[in-house]
């Protein structure tokens, strides 16, 4: 699914940009639910991540949501040419064919055979007597049969958590900006906040203020994001919404300290500017000296 984010709530400013569907997309649906999110920042990355999203959805057997925004989706951008590797194969994930089904004693659609939380699936019509199952929204056991047994339900919920852990190593890694090591401050950003964040870093450099930087490219967060937060005293989280949604997500999922994460927010419907980021970082550093 591709969500071209614009300002909300409801129809909001329909022709303006925002990054305000982060929390909604991350936890969409009722019950304990988490979704895989991808955050492209350029037209070329939109192209590449869309192809990756199909592979991830099949490998992890779950919907993948790509969060772009109106700035990226509708404004003109200068882009590097798109490239495609003609040797690339679609990743279908764990799909059993008829011969493989024959070798299995009993097929369990939700049975965690490999311990990575991702079970094997079958495509309808594959085998005359094996591999068919009933997909249902209700609780079910490892063999796809309806059950309200507490143990079976919890086991499946825990398996989904194992799958979530597995997906951390499959989604795109964050992009780290090579800077001098040992900076006390870091900045975290994603999507179209990238251009302005990079420009702000240059502006800060001219004033001899050095920060490390990381661009988040996916949720669940890679271990590198955790390490980045741990290795800095202060982290500026730059995003284009009122409620500092990415900052909340970092706090919830990585138990990052709220005191450490300083929000830099823009939610006027226009793309965030380098000037705003530059000013707010400088202001904060001056105030805390």
């Amino acid at each position, binding site marked *: 699914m591709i969500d071209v984010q614009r300002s909300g709530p409801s129809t909001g400013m329909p022709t303006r940009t925002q990054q305000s569907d982060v929390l909604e997309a991350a936890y969409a649906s009722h019950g304990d639910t988490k979704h895989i999110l991808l955050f492209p920042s350029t037209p070329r990355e939109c192209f590449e991540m869309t192809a990756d999203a199909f592979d991830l959805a099949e490998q992890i057997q779950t919907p993948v949501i790509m969060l772009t925004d109106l700035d990226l989706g509708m404004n003109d951008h200068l882009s590097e*040419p798109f490239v495609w590797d003609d040797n*690339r194969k679609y990743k279908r994930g764990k799909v059993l064919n008829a011969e493989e089904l024959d070798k299995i004693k009993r097929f369990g659609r939700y049975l965690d055979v490999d311990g990575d939380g991702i079970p094997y699936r079958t495509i*309808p*019509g594959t085998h005359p007597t094996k591999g068919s199952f009933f997909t249902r929204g209700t609780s079910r056991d490892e063999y796809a049969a309806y059950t309200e047994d507490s143990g079976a339900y919890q086991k499946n919920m825990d398996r989904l958590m194992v799958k979530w852990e597995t997906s951390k190593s499959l989604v795109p890694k964050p992009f780290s900006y090579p800077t001098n090591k040992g900076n006390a401050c870091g900045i975290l950003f994603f999507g179209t906040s990238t251009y302005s964040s990079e420009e702000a870093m240059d502006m800060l450099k001219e004033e001899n203020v050095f920060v490390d930087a990381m661009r988040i490219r996916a949720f669940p967060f890679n271990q590198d994001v955790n390490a980045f937060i741990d290795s800095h005293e202060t982290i500026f989280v730059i995003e284009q919404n009122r409620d500092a949604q990415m900052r909340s997500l970092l706090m919830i999922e990585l138990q990052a300290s709220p005191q450490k994460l300083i929000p830099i927010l823009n939610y006027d419907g226009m793309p965030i500017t380098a000037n705003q980021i530059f000013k707010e970082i400088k202001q904060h550093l001056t105030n805390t000296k």
Partner: protein
Amino acid sequence: MTYVRPKFRHPELPKNKLGYSVDYYEGALSTLCAGCGHDSISAAIVQSCFDLNIEPHRLAKLSGIGCSSKTPAYFLSNSHGFNSVHGRMPSVATGANLANRDLIYLGVSGDGDSASIGMGQFVHVVRRNLNMVYIVMNNGCYGLTKGQDSATADMGSKNKSGKTNLFESIDLASLAIELGAGFVAQSFSGDKSQMIPLIKAAMNHPGFAFINVISPCVTFNNNVGSTKSYDYVRQHIEATSTIDFVPEMAEITTKYEEGSTATVKMHDGSSMVLSKLEENWDPTNRHSAINAMQSAKERGEILTGMLFVDGDSQDLHHVIQTSDTPLNILTERDLCPGSIALEDINASLR
């Protein structure tokens, strides 16, 4: 109370051409109320698939939410099933059918699932002429939530608490005909002999085949004053015709009186023979079918049988000209235009 269905079956149960007996087409034990019309419809589905020699793994059964949508668990346990979100079965069926055109798609829904929450989905799956059988188990009430009136409850019909329905009902069969469906039938869950040939014909129809089955809710809508109770339906039912489904290659052996029958040829060579009971009605004429249904409604009758059929129906795949090979077995070679095509796109943006 704990009860189990005995596994024992008569060893000499007749087998179909595939070597399966009818129990191979059954499902889990139904948890619906005893006497529920839906179970009779499930039984008719089981019998139809047995008779048609369908390989269960080549059929996909889909449903939404409601008592009706629980039934796919109670038939064809060797088929793939999908119990979708409420009212969203048509979307899932559309996706599945587009991915693999070679399976038989059987959708089961109810009056709440189709005429209320899923109405938007229903009308679009009809107009797209998706090749599927769509059965609505219509009881005029929300059985799963204690019997509130549904959108198909007739105006003036009384519910179990004696309250009269004040609103006009939605007639799904008429709606389907108006929206361009190529196969529209209506039946009654108490009339298995009519339902089975209708289901079989529907499965052979190359496009959207709709069967609206009046299926009384024994618990919440079987009271005096309800127009969807067993007694009311039995007293007010009017069959348009008797129906015979004649598979391809089979010889028509039944004798029909001259002038009283209409034979409808299906694309695969099979045919339907309708013995008309209603005068001045042509099942291959949309106007005639709608008129017959409107007249029946004015008389307070429920018209059943084959209401409308278009022998020249062409399904969604034909209309949008997809490949004959199911899309889900195409590979990178067939699907990916590759780097040369991409270079053209890059060039066009320079």
